[in-house]
């Protein structure tokens, strides 16, 4: 109960601080619009079922961005705000604060799908014509879980090694490629598909698009299982990372030097 209260407070504070952050508007409004426009202009003349990649693609990119940027930088943000020491000094493990903040990022991240859907409908007269509701809903939940676990794994990594954020930020668009956010990963070269198969979001994205009628097949259970298994592996890595952050902060006192 105590930890639940901490998570709820972190969720609430994170929501309040987001409203005055210009980057949040960029993340949920501007980015999805830009990528949806690109996708819709390119994909509209081709067969109509492909426009699902444009309609959902911009939102997926933005949703991922919210998870990896906001979620991954959760601890780092505390350091920049000068509040990390207080948090580390609290009896509550910092992971629970991060979970609350990350849940808030993912909750509002769902908003990022609205601009693309609205633009497609009003600007390009396109919509998601075929959706299998149950596979779609489950796939979306699995995708959210995979984003959550990825961000939980990245949060201590960004905190312990500052260069890690620069590297992943530079490769951000590369992740759009190997997660198949706007086109099927089956068209990529074999070595990239191998990379993609190690990423939990790529399996969840595959099942999400399969539920919109794309020609992936219907192996939903297999895709969900792989995505969840990989996500759990990330979560375990994240747990180890949080232990390391704790050691660097409390035992060696070197966290501020990282």
């Amino acid at each position, binding site marked *: 109960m105590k930890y639940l209260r901490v998570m709820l407070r972190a969720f609430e504070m994170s929501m309040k601080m987001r409203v005055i*952050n*210009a*980057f949040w*508007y*960029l993340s949920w409004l*501007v*980015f999805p619009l*830009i*990528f949806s*426009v*690109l*996708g819709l*202009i*390119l*994909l509209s*003349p*081709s067969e109509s079922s*492909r426009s699902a*990649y444009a309609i959902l693609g911009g939102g997926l990119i933005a949703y991922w961005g919210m998870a990896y940027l906001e979620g991954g930088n959760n601890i780092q943000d505390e350091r920049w705000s000068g509040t990390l020491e207080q948090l580390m000094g609290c009896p509550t493990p910092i992971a629970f604060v991060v979970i609350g903040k990350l849940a808030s990022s993912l909750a509002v991240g769902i908003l990022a799908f609205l601009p693309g859907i609205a633009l497609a409908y009003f600007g390009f007269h396109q919509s998601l014509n075929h959706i299998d509701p149950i596979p779609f809903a489950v796939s979306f939940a699995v995708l959210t879980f995979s984003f959550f676990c990825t961000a939980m794994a990245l949060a201590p990594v960004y905190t312990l090694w500052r*260069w890690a954020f*620069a*590297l992943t*930020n*530079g*490769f*951000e*668009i*590369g*992740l*759009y*490629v190997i997660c198949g956010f*706007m*086109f*099927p990963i089956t*068209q*990529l070269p074999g070595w990239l598909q191998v990379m993609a198969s190690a990423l939990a979001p790529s399996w969840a994205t595959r099942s999400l698009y399969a539920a919109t009628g794309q020609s992936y097949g219907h192996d939903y259970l297999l895709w969900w299982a792989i995505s969840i298994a990989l996500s759990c592996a990330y979560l375990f890595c994240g747990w180890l990372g949080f232990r390391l952050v704790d050691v660097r902060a409390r035992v060696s006192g070197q966290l501020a030097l990282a």
Partner: protein
Amino acid sequence: MNALRIFLRTCWFQYLAMFNWATPIGYVSYKLLLPISQILFMTELGTFATGRSNALYFALGNALQLTAINGIFGVISTVGNERQFGTLPILLASPANRLVTFVGRAFVHVLDGMAGVVVGLALATVMFGLDLSHANLGLLAACVMIISLSTAGLGLMFGSLSLIMRDVFFIANAAYYLLLVFCGINFPVDRLPVWAQVISDALPLTRGVQAAREAVAGGGLNQMASLLAGELAVGLVYAVIGYALFIWLENQARRGGLQEAY
């Protein structure tokens, strides 16, 4: 000669001090990983939509747009970070020549941006077999230089705006990605609505990318002279507006003591 030495030293120090990525890992990340990722993503998206035969159109367009990494992200941060790093009041109090200070923000980024396009073209050649054997390389080089200058002009204008805005990278990110839509990087400008084509005409890159595509096809100067002149003029207009803004905002800040009020 002394003035030139001071100018060059100023350019270099401003690049190093105000540009967050001037570290080896940051540089590799944003100048190598980002180009690879962007060219790969847009080319794969484009080929998914239009077929493999059009891959080079997307690869070339995105390789050229990479100059905006420096022209937009670099120049905006070099101007805007004065505020973020708390050095703006010191700059405003200094007797430094304002034009030299202002233009110096973009100088190294123009060179670095050209290097970025060379990297992008090399990547496009390796990854998608871009064929430059029939290209007019001299004119292509001229296109790359002019595109770098014009995007830096836009960066200088947005950078000046960032003196009164809190989130400098909000502008940089939005501007960088909007160029992908409006400038004929991934589809011809005539596929945009008329109102959007008007915006395209007012942006850097639009004419430069079109000229560069002609240079790669082996076109001569006659075919692209007007495009290049237009591209240069657009960049110059933005740079002049940016400088005027810079001076105006400085005066406003001096009069009201508002250097860090925004």
